[in-house]
């Protein structure tokens, strides 16, 4: 598999975004990141990338609870969207929920690689990035 070059963060919490960006930079300084504040922004952003002939992210960190379009809606919308190469994106749900129901529901989506309870630790992030590469 190719090296992870691009990561997407879908989260509405500025603190999470700040922390994730910082952590990603620490693990891999060359990594390119996209930040979308909710599901709808993410879908539109992904479409824009395809339209402009730019590559899709290799990995996406997806929050569940967001305004406008939440993580669940994003997963649905992604399934319906025509985005060539979308199946190669590895999606990690990153949520503060410790509800097992949420975890099960998230893992029912075959696009979702894993359900990670916030906060994401550096060791786990390294693992994800190396596993995907």
């Amino acid at each position, binding site marked *: 598999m190719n090296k992870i070059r691009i990561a997407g963060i879908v989260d*509405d*919490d*500025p*603190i*999470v975004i*700040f*922390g994730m960006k*910082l*952590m990603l930079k*620490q693990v891999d300084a060359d990594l390119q990141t996209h930040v979308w504040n909710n599901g709808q922004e993410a879908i539109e952003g992904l479409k824009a990338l395809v339209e402009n002939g730019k590559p899709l992210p290799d990995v996406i960190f997806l929050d569940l*609870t*967001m*305004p406008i379009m939440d993580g669940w*809606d994003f997963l649905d919308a992604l399934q319906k969207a025509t985005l060539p190469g979308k199946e190669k994106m590895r999606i990690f749900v990153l*949520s*503060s*929920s*410790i*509800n097992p129901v949420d975890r099960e529901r998230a893992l029912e989506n075959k696009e979702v690689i894993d359900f990670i*309870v*916030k*906060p*994401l630790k*550096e060791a786990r992030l390294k693992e994800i990035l190396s596993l995907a590469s």
Partner: protein
Amino acid sequence: MVQTSIPIYDAPFAVAILDHDLNFNAISQRLAEAFDLDDSFKGKSFYDLQHRLPEELYLDLHLAKEGISRKSEPVKFVHPDGEADWYEWKINPWQNGKEGQKVIMLILEKVTYRMLGEDLHQRAQRMARVGSWVVDLKKNTIYWSEMTKEIHEVPMDFEPNLETGINFYKEGFSRDTISELVAKGIEHGTPWDVELILVTQKGREIWVRAIGEPEVVNGKCIRISGTFQDIDSRKRAELEAKKIRERLEIATDAAKIGIWDFDIVNNVLEWDDNMYEVYGVPKDKFNGVYQAWEATVHPEDQEWTSKYVEETIAKRDRLEMVFRILWHDKEIRWIHGEASVIRDMEGNPLRMIGANWDVTAQKNAEAEMKHLLNTTTYQNESLMNFAHIVSHNMRSHGSNLSMLTDFLLEDRITEEEKQNALQMLKRAANGLNETIAHLNEVVQIKTEAEQNMSRINLHNVVHKVSQTLEALFEANKVALHIDIPEDCLVMGVMAYVESAVLNLMTNAVKYRDPDKEARITLRTECREKRVVLQIEDNGLGIDMKKNGEKLFGMYKTFHHHPESRGIGLFITRNQIESMGGTIVVSSQPGKGSIFSITLKKPLPAHE
């Protein structure tokens, strides 16, 4: 030639004179009529009638030729078509003078009618199992008919006497009664007709009807005759029916089930005692017509119940309904009613019979249960929301704090990043603090609402709140319309009503459409027991399909959008519901939203 010295023709019975060869010599008119014989009978043979008469008659005629007289019992003759006739005859051989010809005199009577009558009588007696008996007090003998013996289950050669007769009655009431009646009969000639228990020879107990008719001559009873009927099956059925009726009465009394019987044709409504109790109507105040029942029914239930009863009488046979009545003209009670319609052969309704009982207790229990279920569901939902806040919102702040402190402690970050992280840390700490404050607020709603309910003037509340928001309205150029009557009262907690109005008006300003002139309208709508307060805006609106369900939940809460509806609507809903009210929203994206708060009206003051 035959000398007709006897004027046979006019004889008042059917008679024929036959010669030795059984040819007719003379006949009486009665015989001619009985066998349709005309004048040409003379010289004809009696054998011509052989196909219409019993064989025994001809045998007897042959004997007569030998000089033997015969007198018969009634003999049955069955015609080819199955009809039967009975004949009785008397035959005398007779010599006409000393030298005269031997002739045979035959008296032949058709006794069909008499026999049929006797036969029917006997059969009827046998079928009805009626036996007879006679006690001759002069000769001191007693006679029992065959059926009487059969009923007693004694052999036909049984010889009863008065004492054994009485001893067949069951010891105790039956025997005492018959002894007394017989004694009275002998002494005073008093007849009797009683139903008593007999113990047969075989030891079987059966019910009999005993009738005795003493015959008194010169003030002295000489004979008693009577009948004796086996009425066991009828009596037992009757006793069984009585037992069931009594049991039913006990059951309906105990269960307070009222039974009624409505004569549809004559409009006569009969109630049993329980009905009066169930309906709380004094007996003397009920005039026994359909309309009297109708008048007891709760005004709101009168129309549909009457319609249902009419429909049942017209089209159906069974009725089952639960309705309210005004018990003793004031208290509402629930009645369960069931009834059947009885029709004539043509299907015309004749009567309606039914049962009514009070189901108020069940109804109340049911309502209580529903209320409990609603409360439980609601509380469950609240708990879920709580779990959600704790597991999600608190955790999100916690995880942020943890992540940020990790960065700060590791010291791998630049000074600028460190400053940013510290800013973030402050935000996260504030967020956590705020969340805990909100949680506290949510918990308090539950406990405080019920004690603090009072009458609130909605007009005053809305005007007060809009005054505090005046600056906000001016800054955003919002046009405010308030259309609430000055005397509009609701039951509620002042702080909650104020907070709800404030929250919804603030939201309306926040979510205004920047491309339109913002307009907010507040109006009330009075219902019978409730008041609806509507807060309408022409703002951005909400996509109800997507967010309708979540709007009042906590799913969208505690996000770091300064203008999130989040916790505000959740708390508003909780507060309104704790006052026994509801809040709903209708909205269309791009057109605006209408929030409708329904609150209870105060009960009318007691006079």
